[in-house]
């Protein structure tokens, strides 16, 4: 099955063609129960332990819509600046595949709950690009197939397949963009930024954790090329289940280069689904769509229409949080950081942690300094996400408070943080147990300063003679003598005044 695919250099592809993209994102909602029945959606359960006659499609069972899922769908629609349908129905999407025991998926067809919206996304250099939304509709997830006997767990070569229907029926929202044009060479970046922004938005709405690595958010990348100056779209390929932000960007880039190679060589693009390969960023041919798919959609007769009351929609609109992009820009200004620094903070997953730390009383620059410095280093070393470190924003805030009150210096603060991370308790307990207070007792400090001057007479003479810069060596000696527990600025003051020199 090895196919050698020719690629055109990215710049050459863009010189000849204009990319057009369409992105379809599926989000698994974080409801407690499935879309049409009361089965739990908890992850990690035993195979087929979360099913019932409804989600197994047994005769005589009837679906009932999950009210929270509809509410989540409306919230998503509103956050995407969509119109919300006054009246809409579910539809049966019929197909032969064992991942749905009903032999159809309950979805929405020509009456999506939300339509005609947009999402503004910001690229890394700050440029804002508007992605228009065609629709967001409600549907249900499918069961999980395991293919047995094939070489790599794929259908190809498998002798049979095994089905776990725990996931069948979990609420999904499918969000479909209008064709994205005009992004040019930035199309792959736009694709990535869109999915990233959507993920932030879904999380801000608190309707799903949207963890792509857990399959809670999945993206299909549709892409076509047209020669510059032409209006008509080219034939598209549909790269399925691209499941990380980086992969979304790579898949779009790869398809641009592949399409350009095919078209440039006088060939034609076949409308087909393609599989993305994480290892090398390539895509390979999947299913060819010889004829338009025909799912025989028809209105679901077992469910009555959903007609969101206008007053309720407005109520939900009023509860919407600040959009992530707007919030990021506001915080960036409040914190006085550059676009680039804000991007680093975002990439580190530190935005909410810094906000929580400031809310617990820390100055923003201090909160940022600890989370992006010492704590980010710990997170990197231990390979854990920042928010999984064993320290809370409140504890970080307490450390910054101890620093600003002069009880700790930075060096001691780092030790306190280490102690908290090691499970030694609250910052104050760590200070107590490890004896980490800054030596502020003027008597003890004064004695240490006198000793340092006595032991370094030559340096002391230089300072007396006006070489103030030499004071650093004495400060170092005092810090060493006090095992770092002195306030270095105060030590310097004492040294200079003892030697009769103006700082």
């Amino acid at each position, binding site marked *: 099955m090895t196919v050698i695919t020719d690629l055109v250099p990215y710049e050459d592809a863009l010189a000849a063609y204009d990319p057009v993209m369409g992105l379809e994102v599926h989000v698994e909602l974080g409801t407690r*129960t499935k879309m049409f029945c009361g089965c739990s959606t908890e992850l990690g359960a035993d195979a*087929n332990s979360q099913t*019932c006659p409804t989600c197994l499609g047994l005769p005589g069972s009837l679906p009932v819509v999950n*009210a929270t899922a509809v509410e989540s769908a409306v919230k998503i629609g509103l956050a995407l600046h969509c119109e919300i349908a006054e009246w809409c129905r579910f539809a049966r999407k019929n197909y032969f595949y064992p991942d749905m025991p009903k032999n159809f998926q309950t979805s929405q067809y020509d009456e999506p709950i939300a339509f005609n919206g947009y999402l503004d996304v910001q690229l890394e250099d700050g440029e804002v690009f508007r992605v228009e939304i065609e629709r967001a509709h409600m549907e249900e997830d499918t069961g999980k197939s395991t293919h047995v006997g094939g070489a790599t767990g794929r259908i190809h070569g498998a002798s049979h397949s*095994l089905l776990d229907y725990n996931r069948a029926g979990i609420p999904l929202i499918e969000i479909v963009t209008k064709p994205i044009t005009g992004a040019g060479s930035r199309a792959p970046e736009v694709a990535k930024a869109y999915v990233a922004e959507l993920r932030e938005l879904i999380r801000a709405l608190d309707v799903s954790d949207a963890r792509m690595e857990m399959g809670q958010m999945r993206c299909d990348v549709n892409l076509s090329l047209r020669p510059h100056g032409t209006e008509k779209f080219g034939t598209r390929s549909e790269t399925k289940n691209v499941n990380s932000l980086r992969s979304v960007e790579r898949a779009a880039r790869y398809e641009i280069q592949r399409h350009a190679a095919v078209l440039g060589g006088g060939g034609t693009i076949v409308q087909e689904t393609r599989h993305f390969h994480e290892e090398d960023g390539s895509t390979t041919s999947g299913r060819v769509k010889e004829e338009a798919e025909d799912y025989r959609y028809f209105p679901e007769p077992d469910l009555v*229409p959903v007609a969101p009351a206008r007053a309720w929609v407005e109520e939900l609109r009023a509860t919407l949080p600040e959009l992530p992009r707007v919030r990021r820009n506001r915080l960036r200004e409040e914190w006085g950081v550059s676009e680039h620094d804000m991007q680093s903070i975002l990439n580190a997953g530190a935005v909410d942690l810094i906000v929580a730390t400031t809310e617990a009383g820390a100055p923003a620059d201090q909160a940022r300094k600890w989370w992006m410095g010492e704590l980010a280093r710990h997170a990197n070393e231990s390979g854990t996400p920042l928010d999984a470190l064993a320290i809370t924003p409140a504890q970080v805030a307490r450390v910054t408070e101890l620093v600003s009150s002069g009880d700790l210096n930075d060096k001691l603060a780092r030790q306190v943080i280490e102690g908290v991370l090691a499970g030694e308790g609250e910052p104050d307990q760590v200070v107590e147990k490890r004896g980490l207070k800054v030596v502020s007792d003027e008597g003890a400090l004064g004695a240490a300063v006198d000793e340092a001057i006595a032991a370094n007479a030559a340096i002391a003479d230089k300072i007396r003679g006006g070489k103030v810069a030499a004071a650093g060596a004495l400060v170092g000696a005092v810090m060493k003598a006090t095992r770092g527990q002195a306030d270095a600025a105060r030590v310097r003051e004492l040294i200079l005044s003892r030697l009769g020199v103006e700082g």
Partner: protein
Amino acid sequence: MPGITREEVAHLARLARLELKAEELDHFAGQLDDIIGAVARVSEVADQDVPPTSHPLPLTNVMRADEVRPSLTPEQALSGAPAQEQQRFKVPQILGED
């Protein structure tokens, strides 16, 4: 009036994974035509003021609270399965997909 063609029957048969012989296509085209013609008579009495109906009851927004209810046990869920393996439904090789 409908006028179901032989090609349409062949298309439906393919979607339904039914293998029909040539004479069956003609036979069913006629029968389906009769059935659809009978149902289509509804549109003779339903005027513009009657909206298309997909549910017999004039209800909207029938929903349930997002509360977990007991599921079947895996044994119960699998009790009707023709074949099972590793507590999962076992199905034959899936063809025509990748």
